[in-house]
């Protein structure tokens, strides 16, 4: 326990310019289900910050509680203790400044709506002028390369295309923070590369802060300014790594760099160590 607390505290001041309120902030966040002896702790005392315009990846093995973390972060689930803040404000419901891209695109798009209408759905209650609404929809669909498929239904498109629709829906909502839950886990490798580059482009074009939860270490290194490594369950920060690989990044040259390989090795060892700690007989903390 003691060492976890320390690493959390170390993480606290990491990579944060002094004096500026971080866009997103997770402070000593814990989440458990149930009460008493039956209680299961999913997240324990998690602390990290995300600065404006950063891409931060949260990486950890499957089942470590990454999705639960995202749900707490996006206000879809309440936290047990601690807090999540957006621009210094406590998150206790989905904030207007945030959009979420879900892992399973086929369950997050409305099959009875066309691509365009799916993207339009969250805009209707914003009371925009028609011209403004149309512009946003067109801009978002162009950004993800779907301006030719506006009148198709989502289920007529491939998996990667469907996830693009989900991303476009988030973009048109014009959030300041875009949170993505394993967004590219169920598309093929080639599409995944394209969508990763799309994510980087979006950050540039829309100046967004992006948090991506993933179990793919390469993806985390490729996308991020910083990687938050969750080692074991209950999820706590094992380490926060700065990724100092220069931008713009390129699927071929960036992935061939020596420091890319070093970083992925480091993260992998951290995760493996965390797994070992979870599965072996627990030792007494020093």
């Amino acid at each position, binding site marked *: 326990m003691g060492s976890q607390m320390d690493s959390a505290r170390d993480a606290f001041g990491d990579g944060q310019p002094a004096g500026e309120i971080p866009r997103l902030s997770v402070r000593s966040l814990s989440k458990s289900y149930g009460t008493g002896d039956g209680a299961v702790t999913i997240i324990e005392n998690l602390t990290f910050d995300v600065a404006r315009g950063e891409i931060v990846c949260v990486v950890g093995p499957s089942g470590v509680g990454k999705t639960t973390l995202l*749900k707490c972060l996006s206000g879809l689930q309440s936290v047990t203790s601690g807090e999540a803040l957006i621009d210094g404000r406590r998150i206790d419901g989905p904030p207007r400044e945030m959009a979420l891209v879900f892992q399973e695109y086929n369950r997050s798009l*409305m*099959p*009875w709506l066309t691509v365009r209408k799916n993207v339009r759905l969250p805009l209707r209650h914003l009371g925009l002028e028609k011209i403004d609404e149309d512009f946003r929809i067109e801009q978002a669909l162009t950004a993800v390369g779907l301006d030719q498929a506006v009148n198709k239904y989502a289920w007529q498109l491939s998996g990667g295309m469907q996830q693009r629709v989900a991303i476009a829906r988030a973009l048109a909502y014009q959030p300041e923070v875009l949170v993505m839950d394993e967004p590219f886990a169920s598309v093929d490798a080639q599409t995944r590369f394209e969508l990763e580059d799309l994510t980087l482009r979006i950050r540039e074009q829309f100046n967004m802060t992006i948090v991506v939860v993933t179990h793919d270490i390469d993806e985390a290194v490729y996308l991020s300014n910083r990687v938050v490594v969750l080692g074991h369950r209950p999820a706590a920060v094992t380490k926060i790594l700065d990724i100092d690989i220069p931008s713009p990044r390129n699927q071929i040259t960036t992935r061939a760099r020596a420091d890319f390989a070093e970083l992925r090795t480091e993260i992998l060892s951290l995760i493996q160590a965390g797994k070992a700690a979870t599965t072996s007989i627990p030792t007494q903390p020093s």
Partner: protein
Amino acid sequence: MAASTSDTAVLAKRGRNRRKPRVGRPWLITIEVLVPVILVATWWTASADSANPFFPPLSTIVERFQQLWLFAHFASDVLPSLGNLLAGFAIGGVVGIALGVVLGIGKVLSGLFAPVINFWRAIPPVALVPIFVALLGFGNEVRILTIALASVFPTLISTLDGLRALDPQLRDVCRMYGLTRRERLLNVYLPAASPRIASGLQVSLQTAFVVMIASEMLGSSYGIGALTLLAQQTFATSDMWAGIILLGVLGYVLNLLFNVIRDRVLQWYVRSQKIGKEM
């Protein structure tokens, strides 16, 4: 034809994992047309010389069918029956969906009313006809009311089921993007439940049809049900058979119409299901 294509689609889905060679569509249509034709032909020849008063020759039945329904009694009996059916079904369907939404969205309410609903659904709707007649008399409104009441429950229950089966992720999407209650209901929850609601409406339509006939067999002097019963009681068996055939044809046509409308309204569903199967 829509009825048959969706049925064969279901069969195809069930048989997907069995290594059964798929029968081509033209074949299926041929068989579908051929079987009734053979049955009717068999009936026709077998009953041609029938002297049995209860099974008159089909040729006589067809003759009576023409005389009775095309179109002597069409306006006086068929149209009122169909009018009652459609009015009752419309009321029942709307009330069923509305009640289903109210109960499906409020968890407390649905808990409170679950026993009552389950009790009501267990009563065969036809059994309610005598009570209504006793309470409210023989008026046409009573018939419509009975049809409406009987057709509420299948729709109500399937609306409830449809809303309960909503993918929690869609709920999360709604919350994340701050959709208003009205938007959630009209643009997400109801469309998501619509395939199930349609199934419920279809059962409601069949129930309404049965109750329409039953309601006319008690104390009514006009309507298809009344005329058919009267024929049976006066030993006009050919007329009775003609009435039964008319009911069969009407039931078939109504179901067909329903399927056509449903497949048009739920085009997204029908087509997305087909794509799902091909993959």
